[in-house]
């Protein structure tokens, strides 16, 4: 492909795209993206849920009220979250090597993604738990429910619809993060679009990647909306 481009001396689009070569790479990229996004969403999502419940619970007046712990967690989350992910990826390198053993490849990308996702989720979870009516929690306490039981059977179910929408929002953030994995050899759709599209002046490839990502986001958002709508009907 490269040869033909040079031989012509001009840049023509689409017609030059050799899908027989690109197709397996595209499939591999989709696989890598899904791998990174899914693992990050599960690991970061769960850890973030726990951290978010902790943030919410230690808030003044809440179940595990503890001003010191809340303050510390709050500051940590506020420090980590605004760091641009591409810089975070680089900054985390020593930690990634210590934990994963390498700083290159898909796994090496997943680790910092999980860390960032945990912090992002925690804030989203906290923000969606705050509006839960404290009266409902008091009612559960008056029935003799334990604190963990209240979190699991009352607090989270009461906030479930907004939480699901928050996770759909997170999916988009994580997809965004995965696009930067290419910088550390993580592959994925983002890397595919940059390496085979942008850098080779092949807009067809770039747009193929973009469209696939749009479809992915739309599908996830539609599912989340449907679930949330169903829950909110109550």
């Amino acid at each position, binding site marked *: 492909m490269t040869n033909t481009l040079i031989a012509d001396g001009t840049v023509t689009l689409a017609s030059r795209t050799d899908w027989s070569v690109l197709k397996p790479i595209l499939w591999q990229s989709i696989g890598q993206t899904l791998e990174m996004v899914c693992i990050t969403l599960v690991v970061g999502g769960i850890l973030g849920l726990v951290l978010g419940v902790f943030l919410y619970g230690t808030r003044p007046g809440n179940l595990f009220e503890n001003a010191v712990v809340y303050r510390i967690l709050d500051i940590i989350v506020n420090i980590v979250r605004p760091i641009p992910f591409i810089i975070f990826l680089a900054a985390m390198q020593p930690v990634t090597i210590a934990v994963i053993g390498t700083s290159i490849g898909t796994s090496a990308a997943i680790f910092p993604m999980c860390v960032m996702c945990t912090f992002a989720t925690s804030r989203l979870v906290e923000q969606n738990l705050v509006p839960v*009516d404290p*009266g*409902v929690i*008091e*009612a*559960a*306490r*008056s*029935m*003799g*429910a*334990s604190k963990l*039981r209240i979190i699991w*059977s*009352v607090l989270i*179910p*009461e906030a*479930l619809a907004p939480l699901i929408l928050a996770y759909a929002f997170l999916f988009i953030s994580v997809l965004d993060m995965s696009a930067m994995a290419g910088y550390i050899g993580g592959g994925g759709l983002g890397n595919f679009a940059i390496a085979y599209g942008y850098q080779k002046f092949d807009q067809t490839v770039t747009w193929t990647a973009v469209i696939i990502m749009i479809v992915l986001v739309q599908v996830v958002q539609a599912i989340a909306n449907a679930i949330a709508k169903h*829950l909110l009907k*109550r």
Partner: protein
Amino acid sequence: MNQIKAREAVEAAAGRIAVGEPIIEFDHVVKQYKAARSGRKGAAAPKAVDDVSLTINKGDIFGIIGYSGAGKSTLVRMINALEQPTSGTVTVLGERISSMSEGKLRPFRQKIGMIFQQFNLFSTKTVADNIRFPLKLDHWREDYQEQRVRELLDFVGLSEHADKYPSQLSGGQKQRVGIARALATNPQILLADEATSALDPETTTEVLELLKRVNEQLGVTIVLITHQMNVVQQIANRVAVMSAGKVVERGDVYDVFAAPKEPITKRFIATAMSGLPDEQRVAEMRKQWPGRIVTVVIRQHDIVDGDGKPLITASGQNISDLIAKFGVTSSLLYGGIDTVRGIAIGAITYEFSGDQSHVDEFLAALAKDSDVVDFGTKEQPVPYAEAVEKAGIATPVMSPDNADGDDPHDADDSAIMNDSVATDESSRLKADWNDLEQVDDMVDVTDPRALEARSEEERQ
């Protein structure tokens, strides 16, 4: 293991309590929140509850009345230990719960149901699942759960709404679900925190009837906190009045109603019951009617203290005899009679005319056995405040503007200002008189239609 033991202890203790014996005892209870809340550095934090000693007996419907900020919510939350006292002890069902650990409290709380002003139903659970929740916490077998939920739905009359979500119900229905949920684990005590304050008067009566049934049929002791005197009047048998964290007055509901001692109590009673006209209305009546305008307080019974000594006597019981005896002409102008636990109480305003000396003699005779407020005539009016003060009865002074303030001491200050009511309060008075018309059994005798309807009812 500990939980089971704790529960057995609770059950054993509860089993020993007979109707009429203390089930809840507050002993010099103080609750003081951290000073940070008041925002004033160095200032002592206000005491939400200030040295309260109070006994509630098994089988009571015990009303605790006070303005918001009076400390009644805090007090009631100490019964199920949602709040712990700063000092003093709280004994419930024979257990000193003010020193219990959180782990022991959890099974204990299942013996005490609680309902709320905003119902606090789980919005993502169906009606049936809301009621089932405490049963799940108590580890009931599934088929027992099912049966109990059906029983409770039937008891509160919501069987056909089992699979609905709370948002699909009306306020009254929501509170009935709240009651069913609170009763699920067969508690011995039900705490009602402003349970009817978010409901309209009709629904309030409905819910109060249900609570009465809970008390009478299931033998559940009810502690009811409210700022509405008519709620206390409708179902409670005993009442405590709270102001600025203290219990300022307590006793049998009828006694407190008929012979209130504290200004704040008088004020609450004036909002719920009284046939005493306000100043404006008296002025109008004087203009319209030539004779002597007199309000007679009606009390069907004597009120006695614990030893049977009369505190305050019946009033207005011989008025018909006296009218006949002295030959005065009377016209009924205004009034209202309420029933408090089945006993009539209120005031009727008459115009008495006839020979001047006859009227004077008649009023002297009437005043012997009754409380009488003499407003005079058009020519010789007696100023409103003077007339009322002379009679020594409660004036219908309405809620102070700052009753909803955060500082509980505010309510107390305004209580002292009781006598300084002026015309600028008249709009407020009117508003409260409108409320009065919602009170059961109350007839505005200035409205001929109401009287007609009333006499028709009586004929039937």
